[in-house]
């Protein structure tokens, strides 16, 4: 059968970022794909070469907009490993709290998006509503909803205030029942599950 190449991108309303997919199709069947992903290459590695260890942390935080803890976490650990520096106990706890907060909001984000892509926008609305609570918590703890700027080689940049802790615990506790409800609703949903069968 005759082969046809269908380009999707680099600018396409379906995509969030510029990328080009060249699909080779035979009739209805996709037989090959060629992906071009370099449109948004920002050269962060090159830029970091001109910065000090302290300055690079902020740059590395911006590698990913959603997971703005994981990259600086890995980076600061690497710097602490090569110098080497021992991190104080309290800083380790604060780092863990920030990383866990990010984990929760990040999981809620993909869950919402997965629902959205399935055309199941109820999940999207609920998951992102719950994520908003976590973002509020992060704002209380760090001052930012994203790009928290908490990490620094050797420790953290801000302390967590004792008076904030009850508010944070209350907010996190408040999302648990709703999350349980959502979990049950999605897993038990016959329509959603039917669509996932082979």
């Amino acid at each position: 059968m005759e082969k046809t190449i269908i380009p999707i991108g680099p600018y396409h309303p379906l995509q969030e970022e510029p990328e080009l997919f060249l699909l080779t199709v035979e009739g209805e069947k996709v037989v090959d794909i060629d992906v071009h992903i370099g449109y948004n290459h920002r050269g962060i590695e090159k830029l970091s070469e001109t910065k000090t260890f302290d300055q690079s942390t902020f740059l590395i935080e911006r590698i990913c907009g959603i997971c703005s803890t994981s990259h600086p976490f890995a980076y600061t650990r690497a710097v602490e490993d090569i110098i080497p520096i021992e991190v104080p106990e309290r800083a380790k706890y604060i780092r863990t709290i920030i990383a866990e907060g990010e984990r929760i909001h990040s999981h809620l984000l993909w869950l919402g998006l997965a629902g959205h892509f399935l055309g199941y926008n109820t999940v999207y609305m609920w998951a992102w509503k719950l994520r908003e609570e976590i973002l509020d918590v992060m704002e209380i703890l760090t001052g930012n909803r994203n790009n928290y700027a908490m990490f620094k080689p050797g420790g953290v940049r801000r302390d967590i205030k004792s008076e904030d802790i009850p508010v944070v615990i209350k907010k996190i506790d408040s999302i648990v029942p709703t999350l349980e409800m959502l979990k049950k609703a999605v897993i038990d949903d016959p329509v959603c599950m039917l669509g996932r069968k082979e």
Partner: protein
Amino acid sequence: MTREEVLDDLRRKFKDDIIEVFDKSPKRVYVEIKPDSIVQVASYIFKDLKARFNTASGVDLRYHMEILYHFLIEDINLLISLRVKLQKQKLEIDSISPIFEGSSWIEREIHEILGINFKGHKDLRKLLLPDDWPEGVYPLRRDYKEWDKNVIRDRGV
């Protein structure tokens, strides 16, 4: 297999290929091997030790270049980094992409950014740099000068 058994096994099987084993921490080991034996060692770790190929990283260390292939054995939580040193006069190594397809893009990236030739790679086109990037200009090399007027002029910026 436990951590010690894996390391002993590697030492015994590849005693002519391994130059140095550096035991960094309980979770991480660096194994320096000869560049010629990369395919052999990598496929053993991948196929027989059931490791997952995470990624590879290339570094320009001024007098030589280094490629690190990171493998994770999930059962025992051990990260093995195969270290290969390449002399600047002879920047080429066998590609491991015939063994596992997952390494094909990272090899393309190392090729365009550090100028290392991967022999046997099917498709060494540019991955991240623009298509009109000049030939022979490698941005992460130590001797790359972005302020060099000729380079900027040739790039058409």
